[in-house]
């Protein structure tokens, strides 16, 4: 199967993730969509790595996972504290600062 298809899939996933970020309100979901985008990147890395026949891509994928994990830690901490102080995880409610 043509490895290029994996790239198309990766692009698709990335787009889905991005769309999710744009349309979903719940901070957690938005964040999950971002994770989805990161994973799309991973897929692309791996696919490319296979094409090039070198391992850089796959190694990068591991790094990405670690980064994603770190982001989860920080992100959830922030989102949870926000949720606790205003009892809502909607990103639209958090719009005190504007103009």
């Amino acid at each position, binding site marked *: 199967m043509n490895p290029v298809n994996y790239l198309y899939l990766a692009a698709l996933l990335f787009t889905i993730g991005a769309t999710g970020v744009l349309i979903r309100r719940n901070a957690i979901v938005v964040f999950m969509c971002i994770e989805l985008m990161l994973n799309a990147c991973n897929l692309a890395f791996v696919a490319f790595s296979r094409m090039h026949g070198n391992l850089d891509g796959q190694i990068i994928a591991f790094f990405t996972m670690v980064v994603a994990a770190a982001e989860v830690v920080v992100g959830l901490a922030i989102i949870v504290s926000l949720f606790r102080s205003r009892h809502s995880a909607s990103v*639209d409610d958090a719009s005190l600062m*504007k103009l």
Partner: protein
Amino acid sequence: MENLIALLVAAPLLGAAVLLCGGRRLDAVGHLIGTALASVSFVIGAILFADMLGKDAEHRAMAQHLFSWIPVEGFQADVAFQLDQLSMTFVLLITGVGSLIHLYSIGYMEHDERRRRFFGYLNLFLAAMLLLVLADNYLLLYVGWEGVGLASYLLIGFWQHKPSAATAAKKAFLVNRVGDMGLSIAIMLMFTTFGTFAFGPVLEATGETGEGKLTAIALMLLLAACGKSAQVPLQSWLGDAMEGPTPVSALIHAATMVTAGVYLIVRSADIFNAAPDAQLVTTVVGAVTLLFGAIVGCAKDDIKKALAGSTMSQIGYMILAAGLGPIGYVFAIMHLVTHGFFKAGLFLGAGSVMHGMNDEVDMRKYGGLRKYMPVTFVTFGLGYLAIIGFPGLSGFFSKDKIIEAAFAKGGTEGWILGSVALLGAAITAYYMTRVMLMTFFGEKRWQPDENGHEPHPHESPRSMTIPMIVLAFGSVFAGGFFSIGDRFVHWLEPVTEHAHGHPPVSATTVTLATMVVLVIGVALAYVQYGRRPVPVVAPRGSVLTRAARRDLLQDDFNHVVLVRGGEHLTRSLVYVDHTLVDGVVNGTAASMGGLSGRLRKLQNGYARSYAVSMFGGAAILIAATLLMRAV
């Protein structure tokens, strides 16, 4: 000897400086200082005159170079004096009459607490006027020219608490400025044409340039002359100028300053000679003004305004003569001098009358004053006879010569100008007789003023009568003295070459004609004002009369066209400046703010919309990059 010339100017200038900066502590002696310094400069003038007579006609001119004034690349203006017969004449007239009027003012201004300042201004005037006639280049003349304007401004508006006086002063200065504009343009033209504006070089070089240029220069000089000498169309200020103290009217607005225009033209004789068109215009201006002034003079009930009209008309004669070229120059100056005497005398007389009548100027409230102030009556009377050209008196000689010269111009112009001059003589006789009758004859017409003060007409003090007497002598004998053996002509010839005019009819005929019109004029006036009592309230009078009372409506014209129009112009410009010029700038600022306000709305606080903008941005970025490659 040359070095004395500067002193002529310096003495009164010093006086002005001392008196104006001296402060109150000089109040007691101010008038004495002023008079003294004026007479000093007269004495110097006399010495120089004597010295001049000592030399032969061709070598009488003297010069004194003081210092280089404005030295700029290709532009040389010096402070240098030139004293030739023409200037000498003026120096004597100015300092002589000036000193007399200083003397007169001592009495006249006795009760004015600002007398010191008054004498300071008078000295300032003398200095400026002398500078004007002594300058050896047009730019320095210009300084004196505006200097006398300033002095006249200060003196007309001397009683500043009277709004009318302040306005009149301002008007005089402004109208003169229009004339000055002409003078400065003339100077610029000379500079571009001749590369200099000193009398000598310019007048010598007139032959080397086209008539067009010279005509332009001459016309600009004429404009200047019109402003200073109150000639149509710039005559409007002279009447109002009578707001000033009477000595001022006598010295500045009768004897000296207003004749500066004549001096300018005669001084620039070579230019005018080479520009016949300009000469024609000059004669026309003179002719028109001499009628204009005379007519106005007939209608005024204010004695000073009547005399002002007459001044205008007499200067009209001089300008006319000056416009006639070599056949007229000398007589212009001669009439100028004689007029200096009798008109000054008349004004001083008028002043003396007002002095006795609580400053009443309306002749309809005079009458029969000859009993109360005999000296004034006699001197005034002599002046009157002189001005109407009573045979044997000064006016007779000078005016008669001008009328002759006018006819001598030849051709239709000659006839027209000549007859105008004759007509003028008639009207002069008429309105002067009118003044004489209304003031000194008939029975008294004055009543108590609103606060019950009945005027007690009385003869003026010695310090006032003496000058009047002296001037009366002048008015009687000067003309004769000048004319016997053409003294005056020979005196001036070296400066303004003289040609004998040949009138189409014999000189005697002209003289006779003059006599005839003279009699007619006097008779008319007698019928109107001598035979029947003069109404205290002015009758409505004919259209012409009413127009004449309003200076033939040209003030109204000025008011409507210049004043109103100007006000509208400035107001609209202020509006434009505020709304348009400023508005554009403020507008851009405001629109910038508006734009900012709108863009600001994009920052709506929703994280997702920010994400959208980022996403869109990314898309655009990618698209743009690809596009760049594509093209």
